Each structure stands twice: as structure tokens, then as C-alpha cells.
């Protein structure tokens, strides 16, 4: 259940963006990714989630242990809150959605079509989706966008419960989540302009 990343290089649009990313994420811990806009946090998370191949380096983790939540929530506007969650639960072989609905305070919105939710309510639904996957390693890309203070607190405590349960989390965020966690500053890992961004370039230099 630990995630070990060694000397990873990721690219975006054929351009190496981050180089030499190494860390270990143990059970029960969270790691926060920081870095200014455009520094490559989203790119790193997508690479770790297996959505794009790494240029170099290794990612050791059970691929069936990662749940990814990106900028887009994967929510269907015409389905209701419960239907959206039930679908994702079924995809991950789970069936319990009530706990997640409880945790993210969606009870009153249960049968509301997702298109009638406010921005923050939609985000809560996106986070609840993560909870129904039953996966131990959460990869979150700016999870608290448009959440109010109360919901942010709820999210933080849900996250801590997840960690206490033996899960772990990798979170890219700009704001302070209000609990202690290790921080990885992505801006220090910026790839040198001439870093290898693929075998092709190397063959040329």
C-alpha cells in the first residue's frame, strides 16, 4: 500500500516539466504538493495515476490502489447525486454510498440532478465520489476549490479519518488545509531546460 516514486521525470506537451521527483508515501500519511501555477502538480498527479507515461524513473505501487480526482469531477449533469455515486461505486465494485453521502453532507441533495447544484455542492459530490471508490491511495488535485470554510473542515476531517484507516493521500493544493502533513515543493524539481524529454531528443544531443 505504500507508494514509492524514484527519480521520476514527467513531461507535458513533449516538454520535460519535472525531473528527479522521489518520495515515499507510507500508509496513514499525507503528502501535500505545492508550487505556483503551472509548475506541474497536475502533470505529476496524472503521471502517478497512470494516465500518462513517465519519461524516466519508476513508480512502485499497486495500480489497483490509487483513486484519482482531477480538476474535472466526472459527474453527469442529468443524473442525480445518488445515481452518480452509485455508478462510481459499482464501477469500483463497492455498493455503500450512504457513508459518503453522510460524510460530505449531501443528504438533502440526494435526489437533485447534478446540474442544479451550486459550485461548492458539485465539488462535494466530486469528493464523495472519491470516498466510494474504497481505494487506499487518494490523489487529489485542488480538492477544496469552491468549498466554503465548513465544507473544507468536513473534508479535512474525512481525510484524516481516511488516513487513520490506513489510507494515504497525495494532495495538490494552494491553500492551507488546516492539518499537519509533509510538503513537497514542486517548484524545486523543475526540469532543466535541456533535460531529456523523450528518447528522441537524447539520440540527438
Amino acid at each position, binding site marked *: 500500500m505504500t507508494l514509492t516514486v524514484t527519480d521520476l521525470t514527467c513531461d507535458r506537451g513533449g516538454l520535460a516539466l519535472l525531473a528527479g521527483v522521489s518520495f515515499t508515501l507510507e500508509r496513514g500519511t499525507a503528502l501535500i504538493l505545492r508550487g505556483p501555477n503551472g509548475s506541474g502538480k497536475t502533470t505529476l498527479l496524472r503521471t502517478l495515476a497512470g494516465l*500518462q507515461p513517465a519519461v524516466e524513473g519508476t513508480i512502485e505501487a499497486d495500480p489497483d490502489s490509487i483513486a484519482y480526482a482531477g480538476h474535472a469531477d*466526472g459527474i453527469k449533469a*442529468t443524473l442525480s447525486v445518488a445515481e452518480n455515486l452509485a455508478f*462510481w461505486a*459499482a464501477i469500483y465494485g463497492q455498493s455503500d454510498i450512504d457513508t459518503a453521502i453522510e460524510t460530505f453532507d449531501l443528504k438533502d441533495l440526494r435526489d437533485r440532478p447534478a446540474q442544479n447544484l451550486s459550485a461548492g455542492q458539485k465539488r462535494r459530490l466530486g469528493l464523495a465520489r472519491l470516498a466510494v471508490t474504497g481505494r487506499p491511495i487518494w490523489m487529489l488535485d485542488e480538492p477544496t476549490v469552491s468549498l466554503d470554510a465548513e465544507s473544507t473542515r468536513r473534508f479535512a476531517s474525512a481525510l484524516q479519518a481516511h488516513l487513520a484507516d490506513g489510507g494515504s493521500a497525495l494532495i495538490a493544493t494552494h491553500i492551507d488545509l488546516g492539518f499537519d502533513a509533509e510538503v513537497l515543493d514542486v517548484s524545486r524539481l523543475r526540469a532543466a531546460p535541456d533535460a531529456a524529454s523523450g528518447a528522441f531528443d537524447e539520440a540527438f544531443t
Partner: protein
Amino acid sequence: MTALLLRDLRLAFRSGGGFGLALAFFLIVTILVPFGVGPDTSTLRIIAPGILWVGALLACLLSLDRIFAIDREDGSLDLLATAPIPLEGVVAVKALAHWLTTGLPLTLAAPLFGVLLNLAPPGYVWLTLGLALGTPALSMIGTFGAALTVGLKRGGLLLSLLVLPLYVPTLIFGAEVAQRGTSNLDPTTPLALMAGITAGATALLPFAAAAALRVNLR
């Protein structure tokens, strides 16, 4: 997998994306052709099988880009790709859902629409049979094309151009079946060929489509 199928069907019903749209389009084509060509019943009878097949094929073609595009935009496709189900399965389910919302209604409605175009009576059963055997191939081939072009600029245009040549054999055999049916010739040869295309497409294309999808998600 069943969950995915059910979701796709539900979405198609709720948003009118697939189900009604293809059928409506098919109806539109069959209504418009007499308006355009003129109400001369003997001409209509001659062209009926061909027009019905072309209409069904266009209706299929149109709904293709929805197969993956919407899921791609709202992030569902990323999430499905990281979910514990094989991408080949996702592709097959998507194709099945497309057929259920497009091919099947088209097949069932075709005889009705045949009346509008004054199709010759023996043609009905062969038209329906041909569509029932041919539309699964159209859905599967289309899903492959959609996987190939998802997330591309100019996706829609490219999709039609890629898929079209792959559709032509099915169209030719299908129209041939209906044509021979109406003129009381034996239509088994084109029917068998069409069934062959369907079987081949269903067996091989899910793998190709899943591979294309993986590349496109990068």
C-alpha cells in the same frame, strides 16, 4: 460493467443524446427524401432500400462522437481509465450501449419508415434482417473511430472521414440484401458476408479501440 451499461443507457434516455436522436434523424431523412425527390411512388419504390440503409448509416454516424467525447470532457474517461475494469471492456460496453440506443431502434423502426417510402412488401423482412445483422458492425466500427479521434481538434470531421470507408462494405451488402429481397432474388450471400463483417469487427476492434484510447488519454 453492467453499471456502465446502465448508466450509458440512462444518460441516453435522459438527455435524448442517443436513443431518440438517431431515430428522429432517421425519420427526418425518410420524410425529407420524398419532399426532395418528389412524391412519384415508383421512383420512391426503387430507391427505398438504398435510402433506408443510407439513412440508418448516417443516423449511426452522427451519434458516434458522443460515445467518448462527453465522458472525456467531464473527466469521466480519465476516471474510467484508472478504474478497476479493463479498458477493452469499457469499449465493448460503450459499443453495446451505442447499438442499443441507435442500431436497435433503427432496426425496429425501419419497416415502419419503409411504408413512407413505399418499399415493396417482400423487402420489409430482408431490410429488417439486414439491419439487425449489420448495425452491430456499424456501432463497433464507430466506437473504434471515436476512440481514435477522442480529444482531437477537428475530431468530428476526422471521425466521419475515418469511419466512412469502413462503413461502405456493410452498406453495400446491406443494400444488396434489401434490394435482392424486394426483387425476390436470393439474398443469402450478401447476408452471410455482412454477418462475417459483424463477427470480425466485434472480435477484433475492442482491442484496437482500447489501445487507441490509452494513447489519447495521455
